[in-house]
């Protein structure tokens, strides 16, 4: 029972924290203690991209089946785990197909015990929303948007640890 409570806290805490940060989602995927907001329509997620504060927001578009995405995920997780006093929020926007949430995304997240906020975007009309993320984005993943109140950078690439750290440091300064 104590173990269960502990697990629940671990799982629910990030979700509760993200609730104040993420716009309301169309639905929630909830299974085996994993809670993921699912956005059926980009419009619902769009307010996330309009936030301007002293927090550096790092939004990464990925999918479990995308090898170069999975390769760089640990570096995003490191930012979430080891950001110290820097104000950083990492949001991993999964583009996994709707029918793969249970059989692919769920086991993936459970196995890796991901700490970053994960949301799912299943809006199929990508031509309608890709340019709203960044007009230079061709649509290939992985893709990453980093912004704060004063600056905004978009990258259609796979990051090495050094590249990602250096770009994030240019927003936040180096963690002592």
């Amino acid at each position: 029972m104590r173990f269960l409570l502990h697990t629940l806290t671990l799982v629910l805490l990030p979700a509760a924290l993200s609730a104040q940060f993420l716009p309301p989602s169309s639905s929630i995927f909830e299974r085996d203690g994993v809670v993921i907001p699912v956005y059926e329509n980009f419009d619902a997620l769009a307010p996330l991209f309009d936030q301007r504060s002293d927090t550096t927001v790092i939004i990464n578009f990925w999918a479990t089946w995308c090898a170069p995405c999975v390769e760089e995920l640990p570096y995003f997780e490191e930012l979430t785990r080891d950001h110290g006093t820097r104000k950083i929020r990492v949001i991993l926007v999964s583009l996994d197909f709707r029918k793969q949430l249970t059989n692919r995304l769920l086991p993936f997240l459970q196995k890796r015990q991901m700490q970053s906020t994960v949301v799912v975007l299943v809006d199929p009309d990508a031509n309608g929303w890709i340019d709203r993320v960044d007009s230079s984005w061709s649509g290939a993943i992985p893709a990453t948007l980093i912004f704060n109140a004063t600056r905004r950078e978009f990258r259609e690439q796979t990051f090495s640890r050094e590249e990602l750290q250096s770009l994030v440091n240019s927003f936040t300064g180096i963690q002592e």
Partner: protein
Amino acid sequence: MKSIFLTTLALLVFSSLSATAGGYSVGDKATDFRLMNVDGKMVSMADFPSASGFIVIFTCNHCPYSIAYEDRIIALDTKFKSRGYPVIAINPNDPDVQPEDSFDAMVERAQEKEFPFPYLLDEGQKIYPQYGATRTPHVFVLQKDGSDFRVRYIGAIDNNHEDADDADEHYVEAAVDALLTGAAPAVESTKAIGCSIKYKK
């Protein structure tokens, strides 16, 4: 100090070039190619003298978006080959980086799915950068213009990768239908999510 400046300048110039260079816009002349088909024969657009154009699709074996569109690509070829716009599929990925996209795997997949169109390997990856393909699947509809091939549409197949029945914009079909009536496609370019093209770093 000077060398740092020059290096930086060179990097800036190079990065701005790579952002703009490479890749066709609608209206551009597209290059022909000569690539190995899954039947072991080399294929060029010049091998189809009676074609009015082509639906060139950069696609591959491993990418879930490509797999989701396989049946729709077959349907495009079935509908338009007899009307002068056959599909030519090209796998742009480096098989060393993505082993599921090796030539042998292509042959196997083409047999399983009974692809009615050529499925070519972009050996050496010389063709996809010229077209400016960045993901799979990525479509280029070409129209014959004398001995040239003009790009008339670039982008997605339709607006629902996950479910063909839920798509209500059939971009490629509409573009080719327009070309067949002598009109320009109403929608000339679209974007879609897809798998990045795999190359050696």
